[in-house]
């Protein structure tokens, strides 16, 4: 009797488990389908090839090119900057600190905490720094804020990959007489090149999709920024502002911009998959 009950219990729970997994898949499908269903019909070439013209916010002509370009500028620059700071940190933790595991795990812990800080807090902090430095809302202030925001993400994901380098390879490199920095750049970086690119792409995706951190610092403009000191529009903010407009034509643009942003994110995730599949082949294994 008890056994029978157990069987039924297992069946019920297994059904629930399958249901929750299916639910997650369905949610993703519903997100993608609803966004494309609403946004694709209103997406046109003019929309992505023109900046806003006069009367744009009353439903007249123009497009969201300013936001697309602004977002790309912002996230490419901050990803580069964060990589430049992030790679040495990740290498330092893994190559130099092999004998100080306690300090290394403390740094990892700090980075995990930083990863958890909400982007709006980074935005507020960026705003304080901006005021302190006497900057105005500009592309530069935005780049700095987003850099700080994606830095923990980049370091932590690079670190995850660098820890997979076999100890034997590390020791072999040192025993052949290479310095630690040579070991870092010529062995560790090369061994993990694919994983590092995926880590950078992940951070890039975060940077381009985040609105809260640039809200305070980047400002918003209808023009494509021509220097670091100018404000810049970003895609997430373009979506947010245009969606709150009472004009249906302007709202349509928000939905079209959502499709553009979602496509960028999906493409990044596909590239990531392809790279990580390829890169597993070229690794030296022990």
């Amino acid at each position, binding site marked *: 009797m008890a056994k029978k009950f157990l069987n039924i*219990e*297992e069946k019920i729970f*297994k059904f*629930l*488990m*399958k*249901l*929750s*997994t299916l*639910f*997650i898949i369905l*949610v*993703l499908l519903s*997100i993608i389908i*609803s*966004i494309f269903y*609403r946004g694709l019909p209103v997406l046109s070439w003019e929309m992505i090839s023109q900046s806003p013209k006069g009367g744009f916010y009353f439903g007249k002509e123009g497009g969201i090119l300013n936001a697309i370009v602004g977002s790309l500028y912002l996230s490419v620059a901050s990803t580069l900057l964060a990589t430049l*700071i*992030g790679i*040495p940190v990740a290498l*330092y933790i893994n190559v*130099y600190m092999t004998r100080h595991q306690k300090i290394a795990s403390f*740094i990892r*812990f*700090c980075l995990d*905490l930083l990863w*958890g800080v*909400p*982007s*709006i*807090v*980074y935005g*507020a*902090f960026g*705003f*304080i*720094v901006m005021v302190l430095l006497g900057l105005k809302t500009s592309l530069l202030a935005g780049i700095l804020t987003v850099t*700080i925001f994606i*830095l923990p993400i980049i370091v932590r994901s690079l670190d995850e990959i660098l820890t997979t380098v076999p100890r034997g390879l590390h020791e072999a490199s040192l025993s052949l007489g290479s*310095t*630690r*920095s*040579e070991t870092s*750049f010529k062995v560790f970086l090369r061994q993990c090149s694919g994983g590092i690119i995926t880590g950078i792409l992940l951070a890039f995706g*975060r940077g381009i*999709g985040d*609105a*809260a951190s640039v809200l*305070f610092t980047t400002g918003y403009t209808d023009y494509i920024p021509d220097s670091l000191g100018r404000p810049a529009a970003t895609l*997430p903010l373009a*979506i*947010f502002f245009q*969606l709150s407009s009472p004009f249906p034509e302007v709202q349509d643009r*928000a939905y079209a911009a*959502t499709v553009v942003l979602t496509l960028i*994110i*999906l493409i*990044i*995730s596909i590239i*990531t998959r392809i790279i990580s599949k390829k890169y597993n082949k070229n690794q030296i294994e022990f």
Partner: protein
Amino acid sequence: MNSRLRIRYFKEKISSIWMMVCLILVIILPIGIGLGLWYKSNIIIQEYSFSELFFSSEWAPNSGKFGFLSFIISSVWLTILSVLIAAPVCILSAIYLTEYANKKVLNIMHPVIDILAGIPSVVYGVWGILLIVPLVSKVIAPAFGVQTAGYTLLTGAIVLSIMIIPFILNILIEIFKSIPQELKEASLSLGATYWQTIKLVLIRKAFPGIISAIGLGISRAFGETMAVLMVAGNVAKVPKGLFDPAYPLPALIANNYGEMMSVPMYDSALLLAALILFVIVIGFNLLSRLAIIRYQKRI
């Protein structure tokens, strides 16, 4: 020492210094954020009493009233509700994915979780407006006999729960995977069924890990901004039910950045809101991460 060796030494020195500088930069960053926010919000803390700020729901910046109560309560309710929705789904799904699922399912689920985790918050907001707002206003609220436009606490919580699912799920999968195989084998060899093993060994063993994963989910939900801002209604009142609009702390900050420089104390008040967020999120993160580390050591 020949010159080539000298160049190599020089390169080693330079890159070591570069690495050190970057590392120090990363370590002082959290301290810098905390201090910066404290420094700016200190102005309002000096001026107002604790109860005026945190136990009053009167929010009228133009007449100098800064009561955070309704925002804090909105944030707490949103977080609790969203975790209540997300946690069961994540636990069930994580057990399924680690214990039952075959390779085919895993091959589908890996990209699904990755993409869900990568979708920007604004896109979740748009999805919320397209699907969840009508769902709440046309289906759920009428079922309870309430009339609403759909921009409610419940709507925010539903959208938020979906956003934290990939996050909690990823941690839970790690945790279930870290349970030693031998434990399960021992239980099976003693005659327990597979389900009994999961129920009595796996879940019991992983319990502290599950709690910490949920803790991390809470901290994630607490700080989410844009999506909630777009669907939760944003009325500065203490929400009395599921179908009342909510106005959480992050939305407060994001919504008012434009006018904050023109009203005295306003910027300080908003940065105090950011400080509260920072402290609570870091606190939850700290506790959960410490718990996870302790738990992993025990295994």
